[in-house]
């Protein structure tokens, strides 16, 4: 078991033949992901990386039965690609592209929700079920199979966290990079119950950042609904107020969304909060030993 994706998940790639799309699709195929085709307008009928190319997502879905799409199109085409996927009946769109305008994502997400399509990202490393299915740009080799679920706003902190968990002798069930933009798809609150329900997952690592209130919402949810142990780290305790730290969402304004606030809320919900990401692995070892 795992959440959302596994070895049988059929995946198509939007922006399949572009430079980024090609490079990462090839890596995913090498990892064992069932990429069954891709979409590039005007290249329908050709083959790429040994897989068929289609002009539209509808064509790709009807020919391959794919349920998940990995999106690599340029920023200004992201909204169009997401809405096309939703319209074609895709169940989950994983949006890797960085720099999609916020207004576009607002419309695209609303449309996806209306059509019952889940989204992950944008501007994220994607999702990986260890040793089964990698849909994204993370280095696959650090994710050893195991019983720790991971949810993170940050790409490289996902790797850092997973690597520590594995070095402590544990492993990852599924890791999801949710992205740090102002508007994102699946968040902690939707992913936590999936991990709670997954028998393979015994503990959860949650990595957050300054800005917004998703972590605060997660804390409230954990308090009421999550029985499995949760370890959390919030990046940006030392970030100055009002400055943008790379991710568009990571702006602390007007006192809302600080690391201190989020850490306190999570601690009050019974989460083991670490002050440095270097402590994630040890904290997981501790909570799993207690069980």
């Amino acid at each position, binding site marked *: 078991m795992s959440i959302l994706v596994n070895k049988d998940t059929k995946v198509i790639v939007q922006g399949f033949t572009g430079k980024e799309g090609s490079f990462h699709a090839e890596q995913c195929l090498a990892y064992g992901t069932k990429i069954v085709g891709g979409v590039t307008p005007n290249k329908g009928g050709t083959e790429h990386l040994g897989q068929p190319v289609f002009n539209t997502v509808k064509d790709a879905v009807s020919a391959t039965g794919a349920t998940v799409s990995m999106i690599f199109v340029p920023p200004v085409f992201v909204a169009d690609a997401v809405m096309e996927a939703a319209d074609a009946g895709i169940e989950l769109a994983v949006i890797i592209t960085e720099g999609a305008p916020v207004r576009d994502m607002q419309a695209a997400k*609303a449309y996806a929700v209306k059509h019952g399509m889940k989204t992950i990202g944008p501007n994220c490393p994607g999702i990986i079920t260890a040793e089964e299915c990698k849909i994204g740009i*993370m280095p696959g080799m650090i994710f050893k199979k195991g019983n720790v679920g991971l949810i993170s706003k940050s790409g490289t902190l996902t790797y850092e966290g997973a690597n520590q968990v594995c070095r402590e002798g544990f492993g990852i069930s599924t890791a999801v990079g949710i992205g740090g933009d102002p508007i994102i798809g699946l968040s902690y609150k939707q992913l936590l119950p999936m991990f709670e329900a997954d028998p393979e997952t015994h503990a959860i690592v949650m990595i957050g*950042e300054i800005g917004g209130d998703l972590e605060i*919402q997660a804390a409230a949810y954990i308090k009421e609904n999550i029985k499995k142990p949760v370890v959390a780290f919030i990046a940006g305790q030392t970030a100055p107020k009002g400055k943008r730290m790379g991710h568009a969402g*990571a702006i602390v304004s007007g006192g809302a969304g600080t690391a201190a606030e989020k850490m306190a809320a999570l601690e009050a919900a019974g989460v083991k909060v670490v002050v440095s990401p270097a402590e994630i692995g040890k904290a997981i070892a501790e909570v799993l030993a207690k069980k």
Partner: protein
Amino acid sequence: MNIHEYQAKQIFAKYGVPTPKGLMAESVEQAVKNAEILGGPIWVVKAQIHAGGRGLGGGVKLARSLEEVEKLSREILGMTLVTHQTGPEGKLVQKLYIEDGADIKDELYLGVVLDRAKEMPIIMASTEGGMAIEDVAHDTPEKIIKVAVDPAIGFQGFHGRELVFGLGITDPSEQKKFIDFASKLYKLYMENDAEMIEINPLVKTGSGEFLALDGKMGFDDSALGRHPEIEAMRDISEEDADEREAGKYGLSYVSLDGEIGCMVNGAGLAMGTMDTINYMGGTPANFLDVGGKANAETVAKGFEIILKNPKVKAIFVNIFGGIVRCDRIANGILEATKLVDVHVPVIVRLDGTNAPEAAEILRNANIANVIAATDLADGAAKAVAAAKQAK
């Protein structure tokens, strides 16, 4: 990207959002000339900087004669204005806005921002104009009216009614004017990919007109490509020179007060690295995200920018290679030590894709100043120790 008040008011005017008449000046002579054109009898001389709280800092003053306009312009132009948003170092005033004085009866607040929880724009209004809205939100949250507008339906009549009844505007003609004002503001927010608009204060005049007395706008950087006319409003003198220089090379840089320079890939890990340094008793000198496309040139540039800061006593390079390959970073470090005089210890932690090859490259190069670290905790500890030793 942020713009000046006078630029925001140009956009307001384009959309029919009423503002007092005003003209921008870059010299005292121009300021006086502007005042003559506007005609008076009362003018406001306003410092143009990208920060709020200008009035309290002495950057906004009333003039009752042309002589006074000249005197005040001379005072304000070239001054370093310190407000609660500029930091203690303040900001140099290089532009003035000379504006007609308004007959103020009431001061209100009106703004549009993205509500991240609702995932739609939200219009905020308050009767407590002229105060910092953060303070109003903290002390008297009930005095802020929030109306979320779903872009799928746009600004409707009921949104407007919620605003005017919430603000206690009872006169039907005033209600109509205010609703018209708010709907235009929403429209310009959407059409220009704004990130936030703030009018504080929005005033009601003695004759019952609503005027944007101030105007603050920020834009979504990711959408500037489709708004060349807004991109053209960029004032580079308002931006940190080092941050701009870094941006040219795809680096995201923010300078801080500490002693340990950081070079990291990924924004989250970069913040996590700063947090770890702090946790171990050191102080980070900067945030620096080298991004996913780091190479020898960008790494060298990163070192150059970090080392411009005389406070830096050690540098911690913390890379977890996913897209970024560690061997490339290792070569970048070697290259950088040839291009830049790296006179402080450099602690290097490279993990992930091609980490063993990277370790090999650094070992073979055997540079005196470069210290290898095994993981994040080890690297941060070594960086903190190196910075302490340098004192």
